[in-house]
């Protein structure tokens, strides 16, 4: 843990505003932006980061003429919960080649929801692998598309080899109440994890 955000001038602040973030992850087109938009108080915003070819894993940029930099877009929403508390929801870029960007996005997050499209379940392998190898608490949310095959949650848990202690829920990314439930599950899971780790004497996830 570091104190990068520690501000010794804090004393002259009139009011400190705390912000927290939850990450909405998942493969290409699984409904991340839809989920964020369903609950955000602002239309999801996009911010762009410019990367060198090296950053996206293209080792020899000379093979990509005129393409030394590439733009990675991520979108996010905001929920102002109180005058001094803002929750941000960050969607990850869908393409897995931008994973180094995921590292920046998850840093300091409360937790993550990994969205799975029930029509393309195996697309979830890569995002799930990513989170299995991180300390961040996460839950898996099955985004039900209308034309998708209907699976039982336990079938999906087995197919994706999702560990018993990772919550798995159904959702409809277009509906606010459903999205709210997903986010509640993320935070409850993060609290439980923190409590367990504390009980076992581990330092908190940060």
């Amino acid at each position, binding site marked *: *843990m570091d104190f*990068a*955000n520690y*501000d010794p001038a804090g004393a002259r*602040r*009139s009011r*400190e*505003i*705390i*912000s*927290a*973030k939850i990450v909405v992850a998942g493969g290409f087109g699984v409904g991340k932006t839809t989920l964020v938009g369903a*609950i955000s108080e602002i239309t999801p*915003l*996009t*911010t*762009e*980061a*410019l*990367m*060198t070819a*090296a*950053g996206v894993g293209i080792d020899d940029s000379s093979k990509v003429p005129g393409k030394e*930099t590439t*733009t990675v877009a*991520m979108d*996010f929403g*905001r*929920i102002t*919960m*109180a005058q001094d*508390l*803002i*929750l*941000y929801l*960050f969607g990850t870029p869908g393409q897995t080649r931008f994973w*180094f*960007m995921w*590292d*920046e*996005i998850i*840093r*300091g*997050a*409360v937790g993550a929801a990994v969205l799975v499209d029930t029509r393309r379940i195996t697309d979830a392998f890569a995002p799930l692998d990513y989170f299995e190898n991180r300390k961040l608490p996460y839950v898996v949310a099955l985004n039900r598309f209308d034309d998708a095959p209907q699976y039982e949650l336990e079938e999906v848990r087995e197919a994706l080899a999702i560990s018993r202690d990772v919550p798995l829920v159904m959702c409809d990314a277009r509906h*606010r109440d459903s999205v*709210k439930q997903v*986010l*509640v599950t993320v*935070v*409850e899971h*993060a*609290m439980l994890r*923190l*409590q367990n780790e*504390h009980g076992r004497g581990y330092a*908190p*996830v*940060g």
Partner: protein
Amino acid sequence: MEPRRDPRGALVRPYAVTRGRTEPSRDIALEAVLSANATQATEARFAGHDKYRIATVCEGRAQSLAEIAAYTRMPLGVTRVLVADMVAEGLLTLHTAAPATGYEERMNLLGRVLSGLREL
């Protein structure tokens, strides 16, 4: 040989606004919120066009680094450098992004987020 760049350092800040610097003077999280009061916003008039735009975005409503980048349409890396400068110059106030300093504090934050969500 090209030195290996770390992923964060690989963010290119192509604009002259940062005078070629690519490392911000302090690390600012995507969700860290910044605000400018009326005095800060007035002072920022003399800090150049881009900094003034940033101060305007943050005046009266706290905005995260990510929001500032989105509203000003500047790449994240450029925005981070400028915002860090402005914090150092006193033109913006940096608020704490989710402190992870201790168990009680973290639990308390999670609890507040949870009830905030339930109340939606």
